[in-house]
């Protein structure tokens, strides 16, 4: 689990764009893995962990959606509409040293990934970063293999278009 947690955090951060939310999601997923699947062989932990992680991220999106709808019902009005600027990480969360250190290539990739729909983002990270094959990815995402192939193809196409020929 030690090698996976940082990638899991980065995955959750890409989805939520909020550091604390991402940390909570990863912690929750680790707890669930150990509590419910601790008896399984360590080799099985990777796909199981990602299934839990992606399920937690999915739940997070759903909760946010519900909150947004409820907020509108209870008189929040337009202020509660999802605001892309408001969803960006708070300035306090961006440390100047981290910005300086961060490589331009990662910035560009991160920005391009953020523009993808969540399912495409998810499939790209699972296939490319975690090295899961189509079947494993389908199992983690809870969808068919055909759907994985479609999402992946679209993700790669969109990213290449966005990043251009000379990236990184």
């Amino acid at each position: 689990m030690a090698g996976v947690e940082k990638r899991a955090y980065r995955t959750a951060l890409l989805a939520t764009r909020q550091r604390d939310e991402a940390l909570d999601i990863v912690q929750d997923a680790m707890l669930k893995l150990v509590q419910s699947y601790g008896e399984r062989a360590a080799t099985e932990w990777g796909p199981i962990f990602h299934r839990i992680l992606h399920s937690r991220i999915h739940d997070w999106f759903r909760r946010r959606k519900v909150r947004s709808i409820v907020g509108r019902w209870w008189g929040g009005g337009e202020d509660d509409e999802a605001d892309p600027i408001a969803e960006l990480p708070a300035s306090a969360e961006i440390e100047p040293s981290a910005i300086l250190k961060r490589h331009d290539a990662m910035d560009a990739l991160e920005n391009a990934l953020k523009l993808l729909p969540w399912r495409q983002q998810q499939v790209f990270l699972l296939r490319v970063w975690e090295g899961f094959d189509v079947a494993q990815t389908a199992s983690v995402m809870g969808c068919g293999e055909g759907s994985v192939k479609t999402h992946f193809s679209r993700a790669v196409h969109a990213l290449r278009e966005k990043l251009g020929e000379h990236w990184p």
Partner: protein
Amino acid sequence: MTQNTLKDDEFLKQAKRVLDDDVATLDPLIAQRLQVARRQALDGATRRHTRGMPQWLSSTVAASVLVAMAWMLIPREADLKTGMEDLELLSSAEDLEFYENLEFYQWLDAQPSEAG
């Protein structure tokens, strides 16, 4: 393999490398928090195992404690006897001096009576 596929493969390798580099230079504070979270998850599992394993043992201990308490709290026959003796002593109209010399009288009573 087409030119486009080759480009895709190269692109995917680059993407993986960039992502790996990013994680390798993750904010130390975040890395530490993740490490703590992992340790807590593993500790929680250990505690759960420790707690769950000896259920039969905790039941036995609980039963033993109940028996011990009952043994201590329920008055035994000897205690009852002593209590009654104390009560008799306290409610008696005899002179206190008589009781102070009781041992002597008991000894005297035990002596064989002299003929005559």
